[in-house]
């Protein structure tokens, strides 16, 4: 192991930072983005800490679950989201991380009745994992950091796909899903962990450069915001068409390129 992510203490430190600091920073950035968006739409901007305040106010509300199974599902997806992030920080098998991430997302989409979203984005995520596997010859996340160069040059399409997946992974919860109060807060928290997992994965595209990883994370977030402003809401049909018309094709092309270059 090399670079910034080697020793146990570094792993523990980084893990703590991501698990505790991620949601706080994420909340602040989300607040900043909300202000930017309000400005572009010429309406009154919400406060910077609005997202964090909303989160705590939701958490303080009296629990009034309509269905007990939903409460369990919310807790389960929070556990899987946290587990996938923790396993990634522990540099475990990348596919295992992605499968736990998938379980968490699956529960969320099942709650919110948005299975189509999963259908589009999850293959892309697994394809990104496969791309990293083809590049490094295995699925150990630790081996990513001993590779020379920037992965983004080898996997430009997969990089673009990751941006789109990141955009799509912030799943809205339907109002009629019966989720409110503390459960909704926990879902938002879990979403934050899942997004952090994707950001860490995105950081792997600049694995041998700490600055590059930060830069990559920022670039992704800006791109996501840009996408959000340009395409506020896409219908599921458009997403499906994009998913299989562009994303899957792009992934297949990039994977084929990696296979031809390194394995044929």
């Amino acid at each position, binding site marked *: 192991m090399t670079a910034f992510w080697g020793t146990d203490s570094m792993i523990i430190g980084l893990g703590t930072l991501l698990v505790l600091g991620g949601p706080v920073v994420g909340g602040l950035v989300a607040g900043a983005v909300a202000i930017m968006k309000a400005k572009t739409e010429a309406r009154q901007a919400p406060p910077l800490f609005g997202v964090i305040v909303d989160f705590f106010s939701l958490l303080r509300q009296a629990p009034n*679950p309509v269905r007990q199974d939903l409460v369990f599902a919310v807790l389960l997806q929070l556990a899987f989201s946290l587990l996938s992030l923790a396993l990634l920080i522990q540099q475990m098998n990348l*596919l295992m991380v992605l499968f736990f991430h*998938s*379980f968490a997302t699956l529960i969320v989409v*099942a709650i919110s009745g948005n299975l189509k979203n*999963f259908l589009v984005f999850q293959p892309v995520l697994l394809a990104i*994992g496969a791309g990293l596997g083809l590049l490094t010859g295995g*699925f150990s996340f630790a081996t990513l950091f001993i590779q020379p160069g920037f992965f983004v040059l080898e996997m430009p399409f997969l990089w673009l796909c990751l941006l789109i997946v990141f955009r799509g992974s912030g799943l809205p919860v339907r109002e009629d899903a019966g989720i409110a109060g503390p459960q909704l807060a926990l879902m938002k928290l879990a979403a934050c962990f899942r997004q952090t997992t994707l950001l860490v994965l995105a950081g792997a595209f600049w694995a041998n450069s700490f600055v590059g990883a930060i830069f990559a994370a920022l670039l992704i977030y800006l791109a996501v915001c840009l996408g959000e402003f340009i395409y506020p809401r896409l219908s599921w049909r458009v997403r499906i068409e994009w998913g299989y018309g562009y994303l899957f094709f792009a992934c297949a092309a990039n994977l*084929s390129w990696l*296979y031809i270059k390194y394995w044929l």
Partner: protein
Amino acid sequence: MLLHLMGILVMMPILFAIFFFLNKNPRFLKNAVFFLAGILIAGVGWAVSLGFLAFEAPTGYADLFIKLVLLANLVVVVGIIYLSRLWKNLWLSGLGVVQAVLLGWMSGGQPGWPVGAGGFLLDHLSVVMLLLVNGVGSIVLVFSLNFMETYEHRFSLVNSRQPLFFAGMALLLGAMNGLVVANNFLIWFLFWQIMVLCGYILITHDRTNRAIKNGRSFVIQHLAGGVAFLVGVVWLRLLTPTLSMSETLMVSDAIALLPPLACFVLAGLVFSSQFPFQSGLIRSITAPLPVSVLLQAVALSNAGIYLIIRLSPLFMNTLLAKIVAVIGAFSFAAAALLAMLQHDTKRLLTLMTISSFGLILALGCFANLQAIYLATLLIFLHGMTKALLFLCIGSHSQSRFAYWLTLVGALAMLMPPFGIPTAQWIAIEVSLLNPPALLLLIAGTVFSMVCWTQFIVKRRIVIFDSIGSIEKDFLKVAPQIALALVVGLTGLFLAPITNYLITPILKENYGRFADIAQADATGFLISGFSGLNSLFVLGAVAGIVGLGWLWIGLPAQAPEAKSPGEPDKIDTGIKPEPITAFPLPKNRYEPALFSQFPDSRKTYFYAMVVAGALIILMFEVVIR
């Protein structure tokens, strides 16, 4: 010793089948079914304790023995030709004649034909299959007693058809047991043909035009697979001096055997209903539900996968293996995609069976320890969980308990270690150097996850809408409870079970791959938790907590919708009767999430075209 075991597992079901057919007394039938189930379970318990055993006909009798097998095969084929005359079906006549010609050529061909080597073999792969066939098969037999009584009540039959039905089931189980321990391609073929004919008897139980049409189509498709199998046998015999499966597996120049192996693979694809041969199995769902369980989770389809897994060491690491992996991955993805579009639960489960077999097929083609391990394990686990799901959706009682068990079965499919996710993860990992298979496996993984989630969500809605009541007659749900317990206990003790049953398979069957045969697979599923599988512990804890939570939150009775202005109902003190009669539970549901997708018939068509092209490619590559 092996002959005694075969007497119990093969001959006893055949004898019972004759008794069932001849004796029309329902009381006798009921007791005999229980007795047969007990015999099969005792027999398989003995088989597990025996381990590795082989039987060869004594010197001097080997040739006679195989000639008798050939004769029996010819008798079955003549029966098929007779059937084709009755049905006036040219396809069936053609297939029967081709089979007769091939068998006749073998029996009266060149000197030394056929070769008597072979006989029977009980190794750990056979034991795993025997466990599935007899363990689950016995439970299905007992389940069928109650099920068929209610089922026939629907038709108001003057004469019950249960004797023939149970005779068919017993014969099917006996033939499958014979097939599993057969160590000669001709013996394998004989039991296979018997199973196909049993399948026809069971599928056409209703005697409706639709049932008869589906039964005929099933027979024709599987006999076509039989022709491919026989061509493989003849081709193999031209290249090697033996028709023994175990001796064939030890042939040093396996590359020369690729053409006959491609024929066997094609037969296996037909038997296991992989794309484009899926229609026979899908049409067979019109039969009574226990038939679907036997065909999909226990016997016929499993036989196809068993054949390919048994022969896979011969073609691993070849181009044939790569193409077969792509075909398996394609079936895995296409069937899961089509399953998402289904309204009918039986059809959905059938497509997911095809999908799971595709995954097993893909895994079994990679010369990788984990892939082979999971492929073998998945045959067993899939059979049990799929049988549980079928039995629960087919419960006449519509009890809430049956729905709970269905949910447990579906969760078992989705969560480690039964699922399919562990196998999918390993499949993606090992298929890294086979890009088409990799992409298809990724797509199939997501499709099957969505499909099972959709299934669970819909089932959960049914539970919370409380359409049924808690079943009070314990015997009606006993088979489901027994199977659920078997599933749970297998999951809990998966590590020791696999160490005892699966690990030896790697040493016995994969000797030509030193890294697989000599690898220590005992710790593969163990990583802490006092010898328990950690993935299972995680899944089990989540499942138990979840079910407990659901149980607490379950409403005592669903609130009834009340129209505005309607007065409150007066409590008369009379409790409503639980729903026990037909129609079957609400197995139809609207897959609203995907209702806007294009017609699934087109998807079927395109999937079959692609799969057909892949099979043509397989032969083109192998013959070159």
